[in-house]
């Protein structure tokens, strides 16, 4: 895009999405309700593991307003299979591991749906759900994923061959040899905790089956419209083109909506069965027990270093909590395992991974997707080395970081697509140095001493993070100019609040010399474009953005060729400007793009202009060859109340290198949100279960999301190391902010409490455990 003078890309463009949302005129799935809509409520298991002996629906079915009560038996009539397909059917995993649309015989986590009630309102649907009598026979429960490795532990599902879903190794080199002779070896036992995604809008789906047409319209708050279309069609045994999925305004995703859920199929099936519109809007209580979670991992790791703290090798074992079913694959565990070495030169690495099943709701990626866990492990190990060898934490990192002059740096590890992990660009040390300068790292010892004199305990923490962004296999975009002159960009990428439409409009406007106002972006509608992958892995500006750029260029080339014939001027003397093709330097000689579009629509019986084909439009499915690695370095100051264990953030500085910034305003917003998500993981968000896998923190009063009063102003810095892995030179920004937050805060808390020898080995950081450690109590 360098040949273009930048009018739109790189600018702080206000978002095109905002005016409607600010007037309350957004259209979310909950706002969609055709006349005659039936409302659904699910009957969910109160047990983490039980057999279903009987379901008595009689009382519920007779309640006023209740239209039907459906169980697995009923839905089976319109489904090709009761079992959800595996989302990523690539790895070799055992059969029969995915969840059921409605479970027929056995419940395997609290919240699993066993029946659904259709009624005239959600109120009456809940009345009905409360009246469905299910006879459960409780079975032994597997609550702690570490128990999955113990022979004879209760089976997570009766059908499960083993509670360990799979076991794999990641690594390279000779860890055993190196660690046997390393001058220093330090071991850590670390835990990162399962939390929820918690977009403020929960899940929701409306399905409307048209009996006459045999078509199904589905509105869903999803991060993957095309996959939902495909899955609905497969499971209902109808043609894909008979199913239209629309994701209207999506009130946040963060991973929770990157899955085709059993409920979506159940609602579609109920609509087909009853030939009417059926609506289900998840409430928060349901989100707590039936939307995906992520991050419970137990790590036993050791690091070998020389006297200077140079890393010789890292090895260990990780147990990943998969939950009761595997709807997608083992991507979280794999990402975490391959993320450990991060921005560092690690000559030898070896990790044994156990993907362990438990009687808890299943896990798939939440913002960060395994990378925060891997990052936490490496950064905690480095802090340990720094402490033991009395090397400054920043200096230790400096010694081990991959130097900028070694970019691109190929790691002897493969990403889950099987490609070598190649860090494409970035200057990690420069990022670190700048942040430490801004936060006055050098002056911190004096600040700490002064605070201590006042009886306060402050600490500084720091951490790096890198993330592969822009996963393939492709993303779709079509650019089309109408005879009216309006430009439509359609994409399979999914808007869910990030500002995708604005970013894509900027890219198209730049390439077409058009105004942003002349462009309409359509995302999340399977009728607008035939294929698409969706929103995950910080990928959309990279993949959809590249497709938009290339499609817009193709359209631009066409327009130039046609205009050249119309104006009888060489194409090389023409430019696109303000919706017209004009002769360079003679703006009065021009053709509006709309007029070219009209010509290319074709006039019956007459020829098209030479050599361009029909339609002023192009569709591109750009495929990345490699991921773009975004990097970040965070430093923060905290104050710890040693009497209560309370941790208070004083200052937070973060440097991002996300390559070229399409819209700095939007990028900053993404980083802010990512950091605060990380702060939640570091200090607040704890999804508590008891020993029977009964979830205890099922309200926003118990499960604490970060609030405005707990967050200091975030100071952001940017570096722009463009990547050559995509034509825009951009890297993903959605998740990278989250990665090092738990590590940086843990590092700061350790520092604040260094005189007590407190070490944070688990997040979220629990005030009770801080006091426990300060008082030398037994660590639970």
């Amino acid at each position: 895009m360098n040949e273009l003078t930048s009018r739109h890309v790189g600018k702080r463009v206000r978002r095109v999405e905002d005016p409607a949302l600010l007037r309350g005129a957004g259209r979310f799935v909950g706002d969609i309700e055709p006349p005659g809509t039936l409302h659904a409520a699910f009957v969910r298991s109160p047990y983490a593991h039980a057999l279903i002996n009987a379901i008595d629906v009689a009382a519920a079915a007779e309640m006023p307003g209740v239209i039907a009560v459906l169980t697995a038996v009923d839905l089976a009539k319109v489904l090709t299979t009761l079992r959800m397909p595996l989302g990523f059917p690539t790895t070799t995993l055992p059969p029969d591991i995915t969840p059921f649309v409605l479970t027929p015989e056995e419940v395997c986590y609290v919240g699993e749906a066993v029946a659904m009630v259709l009624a005239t309102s959600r109120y009456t649907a809940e009345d009905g759900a409360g009246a469905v009598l299910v006879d459960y026979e409780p079975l032994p429960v597997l609550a702690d994923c570490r128990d999955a490795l113990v022979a004879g532990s209760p089976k997570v599902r009766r059908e499960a061959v083993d509670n360990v879903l799979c076991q794999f190794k990641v690594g390279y080199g000779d860890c055993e040899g190196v660690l046997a002779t390393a001058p220093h070896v330090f071991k850590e036992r670390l835990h990162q905790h399962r939390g929820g995604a918690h977009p403020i809008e929960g899940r929701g789906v409306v399905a409307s089956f048209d009996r006459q047409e045999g078509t199904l319209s589905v509105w869903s708050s999803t991060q993957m419209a095309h996959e939902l279309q495909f899955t609905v069609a497969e499971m209902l045994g109808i043609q894909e083109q008979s199913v239209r999925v629309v994701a209207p305004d999506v009130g946040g995703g963060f991973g929770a909506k990157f899955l085709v859920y059993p409920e979506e199929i159940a609602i579609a099936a109920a609509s087909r069965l009853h030939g009417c519109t059926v609506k289900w809007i998840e409430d928060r209580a349901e989100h707590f027990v039936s939307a995906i979670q992520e991050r419970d991992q137990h790590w036993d790791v050791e690091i070998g270093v020389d006297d200077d703290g140079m890393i010789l090798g890292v090895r260990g074992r990780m147990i990943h909590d998969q939950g009761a079913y595997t709807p997608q694959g083992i991507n979280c565990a794999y990402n975490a395992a391959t993320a450990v070495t991060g921005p560092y030169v690690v000559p030898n690495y070896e990790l044994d991974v156990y993907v362990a099943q438990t009687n808890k709701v299943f896990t798939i990626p939440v913002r960060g997707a395994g990378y925060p866990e891997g990052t936490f492990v490496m950064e905690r190990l480095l802090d340990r080395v720094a402490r033991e060898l009395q090397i400054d934490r920043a200096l230790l990192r400096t010694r081990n970081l991959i130097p900028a002059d070694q970019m691109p740096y190929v790691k002897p590890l493969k990403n889950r697509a099987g490609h070598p992990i190649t860090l494409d660009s970035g200057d990690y040390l420069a990022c670190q140095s700048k942040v430490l300068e801004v936060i006055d790292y050098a002056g911190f010892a004096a600040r700490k001493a002064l605070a201590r004199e006042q009886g306060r305990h402050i600490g500084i923490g720091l951490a790096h993070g890198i993330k592969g962004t822009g996963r393939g296999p492709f993303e779709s975009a079509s650019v089309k100019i109408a005879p009216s002159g309006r430009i439509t960009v359609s994409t399979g990428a999914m808007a869910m609040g990030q500002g995708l439409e604005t970013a894509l409009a900027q890219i198209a406007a730049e390439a077409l010399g058009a105004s942003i106002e002349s462009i309409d972006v359509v995302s999340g509608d399977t009728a607008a474009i035939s294929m698409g992958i969706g929103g995950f892995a910080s990928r959309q500006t990279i993949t959809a953005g590249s497709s938009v750029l290339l499609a817009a260029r193709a359209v631009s080339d066409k327009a130039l060729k046609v205009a050249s014939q119309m104006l009888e001027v060489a194409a090389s003397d023409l430019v696109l400007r303000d919706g017209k093709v004009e002769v360079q330097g003679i703006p009065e000689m021009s053709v509006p793009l709309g007029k070219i579009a009209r010509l290319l629509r074709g006039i019956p019986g007459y020829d098209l202009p030479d050599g361009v084909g029909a339609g002023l439009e192009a569709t591109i499915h750009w495929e990345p060859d490699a991921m773009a690695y975004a990097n970040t370095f965070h430093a923060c100051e905290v104050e710890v109340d040693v009497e209560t264990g309370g941790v208070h953030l004083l200052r937070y500085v973060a440097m991002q290198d996300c390559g070229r910034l399409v819209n700095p305003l939007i990028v900053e917003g993404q980083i802010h949100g990512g950091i605060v998500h990380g702060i939640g993981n570091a200090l607040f968000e704890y999804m508590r279960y008891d020993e029977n896998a009964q979830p205890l923190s099922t309200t926003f009063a118990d499960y604490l999301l970060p609030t405005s009063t707990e967050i200091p102003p975030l100071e952001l810095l940017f570096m722009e190391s463009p990547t050559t892995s995509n034509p825009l030179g951009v890297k993903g920004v959605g998740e990278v902010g989250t990665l090092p937050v738990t590590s940086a805060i843990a590092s700061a808390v350790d520092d604040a409490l260094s005189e007590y020898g407190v070490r944070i080995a688990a997040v979220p950081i629990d005030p009770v455990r801080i006091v426990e450690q300060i008082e030398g109590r037994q660590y639970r």
Partner: protein
Amino acid sequence: MSSSTVSVGRTLTLSVNDKTYETTVESRTTLADCLRNQLGLTGTHLGCEHGVCGACTVLIDGRTARGCLMLAAQAEGCAITTVEGLSPTGELQPLQQAFWDCHGLQCGFCTPGILLTLTELMRDDPQADEKAVRLALSGHLCRCTGYQNIVAAALSAVEQLRETS
């Protein structure tokens, strides 16, 4: 509930955004549901239905309240303001404009409630500083923005208000 309880519809007259609505709801219908389902004012969103997230916040006689923690019937006789009432002509008001300029929203789901809280704050405390803004916002959950640009938008709107008054 005992079998004796019947869900009787009750007819209400509600004043929302200076407009009078007549509607029939059950006793148990919450104000938020009534606004959304009976009156079609879907700008009021439901994020938790237990009074914590603040997405359903509306003004009752000029004061913020959770729409999910009130019954529709309790709002009779009150002047209710929802997000739709903030820009009756469709033109963005200074607070909304500041949100647009400062990128104070992302998915926009929590935004309506937050706009009403800040409307109240700016009226009651025209000198509101960052601390006051963060305190007022602490009754809302936003998962997208980390609050930073919401605070920035609010302070920008306060500043504008000060300049114009």
